[in-house]
């Protein structure tokens, strides 16, 4: 067999391995999210399956040349093409309906491992078995086995490189995750045709029935209250209508979490976002008399919209890393045009921001359960404070069952290390905590009450002044710094105990 063809097949297989691996996590995201736990399961299964495949492929290749590689390519191709349907079907069997976030830990960890083993492991074993067989088929394998093995492995690794970059920068934006794995499957099938005897009809062609069979699997019904589902560069996003008529933005596995809310035609949402109108309303103007509000983690723009409508003189802007969420905000969440939007990472945008703000609201969650580590460290909060006018306020949204929650405790303590007078309260009826830190003295109660009254927001915000729910942030705890912010580990601990 010609060497260049062998290298080409090795490269195509290497590319397919990475495309399937990266996209498998995305395909599982609507069911299990994309937390480190899911990534670890998928990567672990891929490595184990490749090792098993390489072991078996080496042994098979010693015994027989034959049509083995084409059969393996057909198997890997057929399974890859069927992967989206297989993942959905398996996921519905291992994840109960109606799970709340705090209940989901065992189902996400064990469930995603089962789905990865069955749906991703099988094609990976086949792909792993191909490489040793390609070495064996090479003309020079007898005389220069080391050189041939090195060349085939190098071709495979270069293919993986192309697969990794191609998946993220080319395939995902154009074909989406399902289209990408199907394309990888088709490439593997074409590779089979290029192999000796690949065109010869045989049992191995039966693998191509797999995608057809997968199409016949009954898929989970679409939720009737879903207004839009879209795959973004970062996640799956769904706009749903809750039982009370509120539009909610849910990301990935969703569960009972949401990232934006909008009651059509109304200002208030009856959810935690409403509390963040308080810092927006009471924040003082800067030296130039302007009052500026910045929302980090804009989502579909709930907090920004509320602030802009409550106080038309407020200059409202926001930062969101996922541009598609802004589009959804404009379409479904009435995000006002005057709200300025930067598409960027929140910290990078804040660093580049020359203006000072009267209030900065931070609502940055990633993969449902994580605060991005670089957005909850001492250094980040110092930057936050440096971007506030004198007397300005920073407000954090933290999610946790109690103040004893490991993430809530550590982040609030770290925030308090920069804002010594910081206070926090649970937003009534939610598992969200609002943490407030002032760059100087906080406004007196009467002027804050006056501003709330002027905005007609007493019903929604008076509790923040009168109910005595605020208490100082913890005085001891784990200080999160850029070089040591184990937020994921804390989040896992919190999640495990929540269940």
């Amino acid at each position, binding site marked *: 067999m010609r060497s260049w063809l062998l290298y080409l097949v090795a490269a195509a297989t290497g590319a397919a391995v990475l495309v399937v691996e990266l996209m498998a996590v995305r395909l599982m995201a609507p069911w299990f999210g994309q937390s480190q736990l899911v990534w670890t399961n998928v990567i672990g299964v891929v490595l184990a399956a490749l090792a*098993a495949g390489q*072991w*078996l492929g080496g*042994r*098979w290749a*010693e*015994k*027989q040349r*034959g*049509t*083995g590689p*084409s*059969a*393996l390519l*057909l*198997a890997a191709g057929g399974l890859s093409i069927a992967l989206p349907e297989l993942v959905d079907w398996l996921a519905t069997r*291992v994840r*109960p309906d109606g*799970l709340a976030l*705090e*209940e989901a830990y*065992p*189902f996400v960890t*064990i*469930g995603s*491992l*089962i789905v990865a*083993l*069955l749906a991703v*492991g099988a094609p990976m074993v086949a792909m792993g078995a191909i490489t040793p067989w390609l070495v064996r088929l090479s003309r020079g394998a007898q005389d220069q086995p080391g050189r041939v093995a090195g060349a085939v492995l190098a071709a495979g690794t270069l293919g993986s490189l192309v697969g990794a970059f191609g998946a993220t920068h080319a395939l995902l934006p154009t074909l989406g995750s399902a289209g990408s794995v199907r394309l990888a499957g088709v490439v593997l099938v074409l590779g089979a045709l290029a192999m000796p005897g690949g065109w010869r009809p*045989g*049992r*191995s062609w039966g693998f191509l029935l797999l995608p057809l069979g997968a199409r016949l699997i009954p898929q989970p019904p679409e939720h009737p209250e879903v207004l839009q589902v879209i795959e973004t560069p970062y996640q799956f996003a769904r706009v749903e209508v809750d039982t009370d008529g509120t539009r909610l933005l849910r990301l990935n596995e969703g569960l009972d979490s949401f990232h934006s809310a909008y009651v059509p035609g109304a200002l208030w949402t009856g959810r935690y976002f409403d509390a963040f109108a308080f810092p927006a309303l009471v924040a003082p103007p800067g030296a130039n008399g302007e009052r500026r509000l910045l929302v980090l983690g804009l989502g579909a723009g709930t907090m920004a919209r509320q602030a802009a409508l409550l106080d038309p003189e407020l200059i409202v802007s926001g930062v969101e890393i996922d541009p598609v969420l802004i589009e959804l905000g404009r379409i479904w969440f009435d995000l006002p045009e005057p709200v300025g939007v930067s598409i960027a990472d929140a910290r990078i945008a804040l660093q580049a921001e020359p203006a000072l703000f009267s209030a900065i609201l931070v609502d940055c969650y990633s993969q449902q359960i994580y605060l991005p580590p670089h957005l909850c460290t001492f250094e980040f909060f110092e930057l936050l404070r440096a971007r506030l006018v004198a007397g300005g306020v920073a407000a954090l949204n933290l999610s946790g*069952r*109690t*103040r*004893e929650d490991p993430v809530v405790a550590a982040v609030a303590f770290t925030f308090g290390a920069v804002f010594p007078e910081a*206070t*926090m*309260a*649970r937003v009534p009826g939610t598992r969200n*905590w609002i943490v407030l830190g002032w760059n100087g003295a906080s406004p007196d109660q009467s002027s804050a009450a006056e501003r709330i009254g002027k905005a007609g927001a007493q019903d929604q915000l008076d509790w923040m002044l009168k*109910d*005595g*729910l*605020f*208490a*100082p942030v913890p005085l001891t705890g784990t200080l999160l710094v850029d070089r040591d912010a184990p937020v994921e580990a804390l989040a896992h601990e919190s999640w495990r*105990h*929540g*269940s």
Partner: protein
Amino acid sequence: MSEPRTQDTSLDMARTYWRQGLLREAEQALKGVTAGQPVAERASAQVLTGNIAYERGEYRQAVEAWQAALDLYASDGGMESSAQAVADNLAMGEARIARRAELEQEARHLAVQLAAVLLLAVAAFAIGCRMSRRRGNAAPG
């Protein structure tokens, strides 16, 4: 923030701390409610103990505390509206316990399924190894 005033009773202090989410402090303050105090106060302390446990997700302890509160209300006679609220809490706590038990059962099934899948994978690997030993019948397809 409202600090508990010095003249507040232990129960008042515990309530204030609880509303602020300071659960450890609330528990500490509740230790000041002793057996010698009026039934209504002891019942309220039990209610608060239940609330704290519930917030932490310790539903069984919450239900026990609320049940103790109900028993105290019953022994005192009257206080029907308070008792009704606690009974509602109790029902909610019991529903949570039932839900948790159901999910634990499902999680156990899932662990069994995982074990079965792992066994299947090992068996498939062993079959693959065996295929390679058989001369002339080594390759799939």
